[in-house]
């Protein structure tokens, strides 16, 4: 019974939302209501997620694990930001400066580490993937794009060479679109499989 009920709710809500795109005027009020419910549920789920985060760090404190220091810093920062956010409006200069002056440098430093790691990983490409057509194509394309984007080649845009270079520089875009089309196709089928109950992640099959 529980399985049938779950499937009925899923199918009903999904068909309603899909139908809402086709018959917008007719289903707009109901669709709006269902979307609002969805947003409230997602908001509640986000709060529960924050609860998971807090529980993990509080549990680290009590277990006295090696990351106890980091968990302590996290909890102090979390509650300080929460209380400050509740008392002060988000437009408050002190609050926004306080948050941004900590958050931005930390994020920038992580991105800097990422840039170095990326450079190192690109040097290991052939070792990771071997000499396959895909890895060679990736390498050639990346090098070619780097040289072109650096602007060191004096290429006249409307000359025959310029047009060939322009064509070649559009190839990565075509590749990206191909991958996105494939992912869209896969995403469509995942959605349909859940909608038609071929796939039931919410239930044991």
């Amino acid at each position, binding site marked *: 019974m529980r399985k049938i009920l779950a499937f009925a709710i899923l199918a009903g809500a999904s068909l309603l939302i899909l139908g809402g795109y*086709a018959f917008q005027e007719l289903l707009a009020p109901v669709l709006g209501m269902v979307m609002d419910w969805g947003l409230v*549920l*997602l908001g509640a*789920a*986000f*709060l*529960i*997620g*924050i609860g*998971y*985060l807090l529980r*993990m760090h509080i549990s680290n404190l009590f277990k006295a694990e*090696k*990351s106890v220091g*980091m968990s302590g810093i*996290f909890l102090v920062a979390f509650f300080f930001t929460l209380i400050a956010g509740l008392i002060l409006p988000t437009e408050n200069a002190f609050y926004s400066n306080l948050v941004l002056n900590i958050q931005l440098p*930390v*994020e920038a430093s*992580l*991105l800097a*580490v*990422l840039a170095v*790691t*990326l450079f190192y*990983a*690109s040097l*290991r*490409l052939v070792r*990771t*993937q071997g000499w396959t057509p895909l890895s060679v194509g*990736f390498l050639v394309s990346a090098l070619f794009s780097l040289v072109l984007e650096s602007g060191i080649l004096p290429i006249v845009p409307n000359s025959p060479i310029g047009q060939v270079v322009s064509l070649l520089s559009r190839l990565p875009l075509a590749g*990206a679109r*191909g*991958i*996105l*089309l*494939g*992912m869209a*196709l*896969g*995403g*469509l*089928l*995942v*959605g*349909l*499989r*859940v*909608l*038609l109950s*071929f*796939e039931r*992640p*919410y*239930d*044991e*099959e």
Partner: protein
Amino acid sequence: MTWTLVGWVFIGCAAVLLLISIFIRFENRYPIRQMPAIAHLRKAQSASMETGRGRWVLLGDRFIPQAYPGLGLHALSVLPMFLSMESGVDGGLTLGSADGSLAVFARQVVQNNYRDGFSPVLHQAGAQIALYGPTPLSFTAGLLPELSPLTSGSLALFGHYGPESLLWVDAVQRRHGAIFASGGSLAAQAVLFLSVRDVLIGEATFAYPQAPAPDNRAARQLLTEDVLRLALILGLLIGVGLKLGGVL
């Protein structure tokens, strides 16, 4: 005819094809794709269980990514397969996410497995649900200390994530852990292609729950995907031809 209508026709064809394929009995006549990456992942999972090392399955940073819809749902749909492998092991699996709704749904999937299979190890301590941070970079900052030297066995990436995933991968690789990546943004796929051997990109991203189990259901879903892919390629080629001919 508008592009919206074309999209609807495509969705309708996909649904009809999936429904028609229910009535086809394949009996191993339809070839299932061989994906070494998936075989490696399963081997790495088993090895990690046997040696008592940690297994991480990351579900991504968004349940409904705008540009890549379906990735969050796909991440949840692979979970039962991981959980069934874990049924005889006493803990060690962590399901990580940067999105509260993903964490909540993952918990529901785990609890359903526990309820239906009466496997207490899948409950609470068995499969832990963790939200290391609510944004991609805070998630990275929270996850990296957890991938400690003694416990890095395997890391499987599903769902939506960005190029910051390279930092997670690098942390596990330096400890000789096994990595499997499927999904992520376009930038993440490019970045992971550089450093991960077992990576699925493009439409192969969605292959995981079907490919290792060569049954009728897997065959019918792959058949639908192949027919749609062929239709898409033909449509693109016809479009190019019409554009070159000056019709479009």
